[in-house]
């Protein structure tokens, strides 16, 4: 709408006509307090905190419901308004307990802030407060009834935001309370968004309550390690003996692609980090065949010497490498570089959940056709083919719901089963379970209403799930490429499944989907093995026949996934890097204790191709990042570390400054400057940013917008592949991608070791009578 000009507190502001006054003021840096108003949710106008004086209007007006128009004049702070707000707070405090010293929200409570600002700390009411006992609605959500100020934010967030509708208000007047749908239990997706938006301490989190105070934590903004959507998450960490522990996860700063959204896994599923079963010292299998603790030096030397001996005697083809869907891009890149340049093998793969090579192949030669999550949020029309975002991609589901609700985006759902997002869809199309491959032809036919509507869209983002693999991906992408303004996104499973694929954890593909057979693919590294290696199942088959003498498994549990027997690995020297003694680690000869994504830095790529920075939040003694382990392992093999990690050359060089005189301490100041600019000197062989420099230089498609990336925003990447390449899965006819279908409370190995997620799963499956949602 056209811009209008109006005056607020003597300042002349301009905003589109119809903008809410409260939004226009906040954009201009004028803060208007509000408890019930929440951006993106419907208006409630229940709290009366945002009252302002509008010229020529007899009564105070609520800024959250007033839309701006030409020539209006407002005053937002005056004695009259302060008096009105103070009276509102006094009413709210009529029953709100003053237990701030023990309340979780103390220190970050909106009511507390406003009470301080307007000075209503002394109650004028003589009536006794009505105390009622706290309720536990689920393992995640607690409700303290007297603290509630009935702003309805939780109800609207749960209903409009999450489309769950699990909360309501019951009774009236002073007896009003928020009530969950399952009597005294909450039957929902357990996302915790209600806790997040609560302006006071009425809704508290099972995992955070009474643990700490907000000011005792450091807040580290990083990326969630669970699904492939890549939510920004702010981890509240606190110093403990032996490191730093995570006490809370949220995204209240609304940074990144997810705004304030987090699902149950992102919000509560960080506790695997503190699981007592976590490995804290490296293990070596002793002469009796038992794994026993060892020092890092001994374990590294032992593993390095053994790997070197096997490589030198039997060649690189006798070694297999398995990478991870959860490690950073830098670690994945380093792993494949280590495999190809130090171990001299192309036997490298990872547990594939999604057929990204088919996607890259289908898009070969077409730039700018992938959709980042931001593109999906801005798209006027989205075709969702397969997948179940509500369960497996909560952020995508949130983005689609929000876009349909607020931007009137048109969502088309083609799926073989009913999914919860059908409720937001303009049209749905049921497909037979094997019908995904025929979808392109069905759309082209243009007979059904669904096809007609989709064909009528001038601009479309096609998001497809793992039901589409191989030829189905090729057909769908080819269909879209024929049409103008169609972009694509492919749904994968884990935090960095896309990164693992992009970084070339494939027996036949280098980083950026460059075929290993391509002459001069990575010119900087001459002498790379040029014949495709063995895929993951082929590696274990080769290990069983004795063809493979050593395996290095990083952050993966293929023994469970493939059902490998101990017998099959008995003649193979197995090195495992992991957090826990998984089924695979239990069969290893050397186990290196690795850290999780929350304890390291680097970058990850979500399934939409958005690269984001990961920052180290938690810390503990005895564990090392996979990056450091790989560098040390290469060192133990006698490899040239400077070649492996290009530290201390090129890129940003640190200025070490002067060591004496007036400018002594310059280095410190310099590092302060670097830190303030989100830069780090690449002085150490364990600095992932040194490898990120190389990724940017060598990996096609990874031309990153550094400033955006370093300031915590996503940087979109492109898929790039040489046309004409045939992936190995197409050659041997086997479909190597096995979707894990992790739901709202499961997350592979990490989920198994997360008590919070297990408890939520238990709550939803056993303690709530009916299954949630749709």
């Amino acid at each position, binding site marked *: 709408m056209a811009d209008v000009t109006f005056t607020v507190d003597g300042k002349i502001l301009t905003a589109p006509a119809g903008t809410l006054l409260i939004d226009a003021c906040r954009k201009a840096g004028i803060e208007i307090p509000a408890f019930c108003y929440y951006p993106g949710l419907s208006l409630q106008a229940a709290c009366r905190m945002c009252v302002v004086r509008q010229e020529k209007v007899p009564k105070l007006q609520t800024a959250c419901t007033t839309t701006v128009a030409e020539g209006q004049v407002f005053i937002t702070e005056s004695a009259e308004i302060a008096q009105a707000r103070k009276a509102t707070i006094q009413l709210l405090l009529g029953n709100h307990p003053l237990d701030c010293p023990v309340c979780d929200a103390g220190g970050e409570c909106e009511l507390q802030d406003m009470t301080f600002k307007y000075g209503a700390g002394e109650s004028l009411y003589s009536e006794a407060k009505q105390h009622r006992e706290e309720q536990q609605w689920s393992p995640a959500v607690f409700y303290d009834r007297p603290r509630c100020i009935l702003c309805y934010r939780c109800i609207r967030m749960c209903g409009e935001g999450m489309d769950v*509708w*699990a*909360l*309501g*208000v*019951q*009774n*009236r007047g002073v007896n009003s309370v928020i*009530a*969950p*749908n399952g009597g005294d239990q909450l039957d929902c997706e357990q996302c915790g968004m209600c806790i997040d938006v609560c302006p006071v301490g009425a809704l508290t989190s099972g995992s955070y309550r009474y643990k700490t105070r907000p000011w005792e934590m450091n807040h580290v903004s990083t990326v969630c390690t669970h699904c492939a959507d890549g939510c920004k998450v702010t981890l509240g960490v606190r110093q403990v003996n032996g490191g730093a522990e995570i006490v809370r996860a949220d995204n209240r700063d609304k940074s990144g692609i997810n705004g304030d959204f987090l699902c149950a896994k992102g919000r509560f599923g960080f506790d695997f980090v503190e699981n007592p079963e976590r490995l804290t010292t490296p293990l070596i299998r002793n002469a009796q065949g038992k794994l026993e603790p060892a020092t890092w030096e001994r374990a590294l030397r032992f593993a390095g010497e053994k790997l070197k001996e096997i490589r030198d005697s039997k060649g690189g083809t006798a070694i297999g490498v398995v990478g991870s869907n959860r490690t950073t891009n830098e670690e994945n890149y380093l792993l494949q570089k280590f495999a190809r340049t130090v171990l001299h093998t192309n036997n490298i793969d990872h547990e594939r959940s999604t057929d990204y090579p088919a996607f890259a192949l289908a898009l070969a030669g077409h730039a700018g056709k992938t959709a980042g999550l931001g593109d999906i949020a801005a798209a006027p029309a989205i075709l969702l083919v397969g997948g179940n975002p509500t369960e497996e991609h909560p952020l995508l589901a949130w983005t689609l719901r929000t876009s349909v609700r607020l931007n009137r985006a048109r969502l088309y759902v083609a799926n073989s089963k009913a999914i919860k997002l059908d409720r937001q869809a303009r049209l749905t199309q049921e497909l037979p379970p094997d019908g995904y491959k025929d979808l392109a032809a069905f759309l082209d036919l243009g007979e059904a209403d669904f096809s007609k509507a989709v064909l009528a869209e001038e601009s479309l983002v096609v998001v497809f799930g793992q039901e589409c693999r191989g030829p189905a991906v090729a057909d769908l992408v080819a269909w879209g490429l024929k049409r103008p303004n169609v972009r694509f996104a492919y749904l994968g499973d884990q935090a960095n499944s896309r990164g693992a694929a992009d970084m070339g954890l494939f027996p036949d593909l280098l980083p950026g989907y460059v075929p290993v057979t391509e002459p001069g693919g990575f010119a900087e590294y001459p002498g790379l093995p040029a014949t495709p290696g063995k895929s993951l199942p082929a590696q274990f088959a080769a290990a069983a026949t004795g063809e493979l003498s050593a395996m290095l498994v990083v952050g993966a549990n293929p023994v469970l996934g493939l059902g490998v027997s101990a017998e099959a690995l008995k003649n193979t020297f197995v090195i495992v890097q992991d957090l826990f003694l998984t089924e695979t680690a239990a069969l290893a000869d050397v186990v290196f204790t690795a850290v999780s994504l929350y304890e390291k830095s680097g970058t990850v790529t979500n399934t939409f191709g958005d690269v984001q920075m990961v920052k180290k939040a938690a810390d503990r003694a005895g564990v090392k990042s996979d990056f450091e382990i790989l560098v040390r392992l290469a060192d133990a093999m006698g490899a040239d570390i400077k070649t492996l990690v290009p530290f201390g050359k090129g890129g940003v060089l640190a200025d070490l400054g002067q060591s004496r005189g007036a400018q002594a301490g310059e280095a410190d100041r310099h590092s302060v400057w670097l830190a303030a600019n989100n830069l780090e000197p690449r002085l150490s062989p364990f600095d992932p940013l040194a490898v990120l420099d190389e990724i940017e230089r060598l990996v096609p498609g990874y031309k990153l917008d550094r400033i955006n990336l370093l300031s915590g925003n996503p940087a979109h990447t492109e898929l790039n592949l040489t046309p004409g390449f045939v992936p190995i899965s197409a050659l041997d006819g086997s479909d190597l991608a096995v979707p894990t279908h992790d739901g709202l409370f499961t997350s592979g190995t990490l989920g198994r070791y997360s008590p919070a997620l297990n408890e939520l799963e238990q709550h939803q499956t056993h303690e709530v009578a009916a299954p949630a949602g749709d």
Partner: protein
Amino acid sequence: MSPETMTLFSPRLAARLDALVQKYPVKRSALIPMLLYAQDEVGYLSDAVISEVAERIGITELDVRNVATYYSMLRFKPAGKFNIQVCTNISCMLRGGYEVYERFQEELGIGHKGVTADGVFSLEEVECIGACCWAPAIQVNYDFHDELKPELVRGILDGYRFQAEGKAPHA
């Protein structure tokens, strides 16, 4: 609601509710009248009633409870066959409403929201019932008795006891 669906209600009420749902531009507008009619027939809003009303309107049971708990005229426990609502709002109060209310309590041996052991009577103190001109007034189910005095209480109760025993009311 399709005819083959099981319903708690009499065919007459079920038909009435079917018509109500169609009556408004938004289905949930029918919620409060439906709850009232259902309460009149069943006596109170049982879990089963709430569940069926929710299903008829296509909203969650939680939504139904949110609305129902707001209104004091809707109840979640059975009342007596005759629910006596005594007004003690200002006009009735000034003209002796509390004396009438106290007499009812003495006669029935129950207090606010109480139900007699035989289930015939229940008693409630309520806000204005709109009969100020003839205060003090009470409402028994849908019938009004006005310009009351404590002495008249016994007669009113006797009349309803007769009805409860299946006899014709006093003239």
